[in-house]
């Protein structure tokens, strides 16, 4: 053994040692974050998968749950119905969203700010509230639209029937098209006019240019929107419960609910939920492989000039279309919901002697549960938003600064809940944490944990996007001057991120206030939230009180979002700059 090799080994050894020392702290951090994510994400999903393979009482391994869950033609039919619903919604939402996004982002259509505001209003409206609005609008005999139709034509019967698959597709599409809109318009904002100019020079007219050049460039965003609205639609519980049941068909989510009836069959429910999980994973895989093949490099940054296309008289046509979509999604449902909220009996119509404040009085004074429920909703949603943002910010930081090895695992776990429909997640949470030792059933904790998990992907995406916009050099400056990492985070990062964090907070807060499917299996009598109370009230068809509660929810949500937007000085979701 020579001296040199000894030296080498010593050097090597000290290198490993210092590396180990450094790893120690970061490994601990990594382990802590992994543990939190395992608790929130992995364990509930695993528990669900395991219990789908267990016998109810003995816990023995079995495939019987799958046999029972799929050995029934009606259960299979529900699966087919869900697919039909998802595809219908995805297509209709695209039809609604893409033209509007294009008109706002690329043309001189008038009234853009207003249309954008209405799209935001559609985003805030929970689907079940939209469903109630549409029941009042298009109930086959009593809906306002049908009444108007019958009055105008003298017909015996109305022409719209909300209690149908078409009706359900419409209701879900009008509340989920904002997703596709946001995706598409933010991509369109990045496409420069140069390529369109090239097409124009070569003789293509506006329409041809748009269809052959502009829209193909943003295909990834449109596909993203299609996938999101598809997944939203198949995972939805509230709107199908209100519309599909009277229409006399089931979808997967309403069928899942039935497994919790007398006698409760959690294991069969778990087995039945698996395809929903599989479909979602498949969709994401499909998206990746579809988009992986083509280059979309023109959507890279903000370079290039952007000019608005002059539409001439067609801009009024575009505005008309945008207003039509807004009417379907916001104006019409809102008018009838407001009418019902202030009506003694909504069927009696718009007259002064039908006007009353009693529905609000009933909710806020006579009904002892409502006040608590309203408070719960906003407290839980706020806490959820804080929890999700703090956790994902920590993770995004660790990931973007590559503080630990395999940090991508953390990122993956954060976005994984995206592929778990809310109702399935709730069943997993219930299976994992409702019983002792944790015994979280009926506590606020389980709801907040469930919500936090559900919205981790949104929070993570926003936090990571915020962090990406900040150059690490600024922190490095702090550290070169002797400051620790925590100091750098506290004094540099957080102040810089304040606005985008506030935006992210609102992005989690709003969907949390309206979340029904994750809440329905996790609430106890003292932890009810507005969405669940609306669902309970809707059993009796008590539309006046329901609408009043919905109005309270919307006003409070919009007020909080408005304050938030004011604070951060921009409409946080609908525009890029």
């Amino acid at each position: 053994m020579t001296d040199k090799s000894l030296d080498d080994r010593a050097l090597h050894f000290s290198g490993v040692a210092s590396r180990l020392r450094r790893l120690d702290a970061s490994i601990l951090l990594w382990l802590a974050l992994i543990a939190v994510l395992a608790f929130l994400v992995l364990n509930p999903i695993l528990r669900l998968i395991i219990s789908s393979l267990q016998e109810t009482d003995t816990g023995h391994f079995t495939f019987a749950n799958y046999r029972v869950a799929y050995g029934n033609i009606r259960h299979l039919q529900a699966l087919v119905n869900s697919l039909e619903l998802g595809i219908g919604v995805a297509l209709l939402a695209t039809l609604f969203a893409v033209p509007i996004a294009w008109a706002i982002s690329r043309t001189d259509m008038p009234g853009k700010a207003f249309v954008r505001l209405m799209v935001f209003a559609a985003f805030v409206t929970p689907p079940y509230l939209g469903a109630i609005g549409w029941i009042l609008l298009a109930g086959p005999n009593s809906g306002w639209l049908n009444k108007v139709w019958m009055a105008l034509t003298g017909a015996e019967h109305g022409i719209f029937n909300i209690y149908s698959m078409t009706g359900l597709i419409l209701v879900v599409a009008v509340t989920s098209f904002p997703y596709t809109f946001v995706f598409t318009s933010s991509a369109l904002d990045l496409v420069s006019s140069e390529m369109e100019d090239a097409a124009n020079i070569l003789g293509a007219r506006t329409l041809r240019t748009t269809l052959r050049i502009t829209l193909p460039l943003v295909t990834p965003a449109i596909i993203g929107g299609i996938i999101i609205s598809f997944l939203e639609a198949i995972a939805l519980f509230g709107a199908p419960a209100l519309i599909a049941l009277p229409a006399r068909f089931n979808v997967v989510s309403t069928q899942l609910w039935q497994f919790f009836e007398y006698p409760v069959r959690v294991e069969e429910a778990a087995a039945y939920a698996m395809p929903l999980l599989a479909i979602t994973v498949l969709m994401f895989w499909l998206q990746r492989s579809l988009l992986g093949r083509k280059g979309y490099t023109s959507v890279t940054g903000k370079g290039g000039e952007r000019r608005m296309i002059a539409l001439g008289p067609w801009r009024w046509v575009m505005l008309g279309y945008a207003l039509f979509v807004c009417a379907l999604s916001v104006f019409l449902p809102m008018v009838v919901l407001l009418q019902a909220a202030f009506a003694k009996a909504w069927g009696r119509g718009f007259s002064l002697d039908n006007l009353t404040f009693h529905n609000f009085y009933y909710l806020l004074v006579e009904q002892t549960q409502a006040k608590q429920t309203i408070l719960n909703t906003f407290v839980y949603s706020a806490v959820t938003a804080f929890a999700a943002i703090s956790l994902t910010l920590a993770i995004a930081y660790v990931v973007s600064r590559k503080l630990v090895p395999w940090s991508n695992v953390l990122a993956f776990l954060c976005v994984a809940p995206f592929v778990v429909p809310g109702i399935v997640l709730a069943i997993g949470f219930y299976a994992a944490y409702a019983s002792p030792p944790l015994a979280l059933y009926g506590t606020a904790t389980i709801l907040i944990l469930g919500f936090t998990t559900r919205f981790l992907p949104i929070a993570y995406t926003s936090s990571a996007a915020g962090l990406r916009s900040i150059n690490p050099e600024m922190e490095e400056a702090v550290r070169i001057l002797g400051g620790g990492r925590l100091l750098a985070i506290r004094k540099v990062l957080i102040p810089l991120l304040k606005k985008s964090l506030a935006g992210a907070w609102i992005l989690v807060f709003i969907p949390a206030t309206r979340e029904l499917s994750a809440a329905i299996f996790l609430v106890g009598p003292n932890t009810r939230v507005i969405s669940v109370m609306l669902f309970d009230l809707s059993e009796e068809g008590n539309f006046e009180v329901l609408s009043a509660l919905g109005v309270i929810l919307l006003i409070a949500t919009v007020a909080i979002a408005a304050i938030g937007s004011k604070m951060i000085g921009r409409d946080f979701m609908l525009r890029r700059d």
Partner: protein
Amino acid sequence: MFTIRRRNFILGSSALVALGTGPKVSAQAAASMTPHEKELYDAAKKEGELTWYTAHSDDITSQALGRSFESLYPGIKVNVLRTTAQVAYQRITQEIKASAIQCDVLSSTDLGHSVELKAKGAFEKYIPENSSKVLDIYKGYDPDGYYFVTSAGLIGIGYNTAKVKEADAPKNWTDLLDPRWNNNIALGHPGFSGYVGTWALTLRNQYGWDFFEKLAKNNPRVGRSINDTVTMLNAGESAVAGSGPAATLLESVRKGNPLAMVYPTDGSVLIIAPSSIMKGCKHPNAARLFMEFLMSPGASQIWVDHFTESIRPEVPASKIAKPAKDLKIIRPTVAEITKGVPEVIKQWRETFGA
């Protein structure tokens, strides 16, 4: 002297009940509490509240009962959770599975649930003093003392008088099969409503499942709660409520809605609705006091004010609603309900599609 501890207190009061030595209750005013009631009240005040899952009535009547209890027994808050019977059952079984009982008193409308939950050992045994003072037909459903009839209601046929003339209205159940009601019948869903479950079972006993196969051809609008049928009549969505809950419908008439009730010539369906205390609940004394309250004349008066049956002989029926004793009544036995309602739910889903 020895100080009375809470535990002794509870033991004492239960012993009193078990022996059935409580003094006679005559008038249930707050001022004149019986010693037993006073004991329960004192113990319940320490608990401060109770949670009541109820499917007995609509939300308005349930809230009225809750408020009445609170004013009779100041210091005890009632959390009223009104849902359909199946939803209440679903939440209860979730709580049992998670060993975290949130509900104190469960008021169902499906006797089968009571039989099932009692067999599982989910109920606390408690024989209310008032249970011996209700009308004879509501006595002794569970001699072991785990569940008691605390409400009863009638199902007939309702119609919208603005759309249907009295002469044209259905007179009996089979009239619902007339094609003229196509697209114009409202029904509840047995998969949710306990009332509708028992109603469907009763009609299956009477006419066979064939009746529902034919009814489905009339394309009825199926909601969830039985009370939804009244909403559909008021809205003008349906002309006839095939499963018409007398109480909710008459309450709606009082509000000025153009509705009327038909008591079918082939028999109105009487629903017997039970209540129980959950084993392991958090507010056992408040729960006992509430059970006494549900079977008190005061509660019956509220039921009658909201057009539901009185279960106490002292409280006469309302002038508007016809009491069960004056009508032809059809109803299944408890054993039939326990076995039959789950069957009916299954058949319903096959026939009506959801």
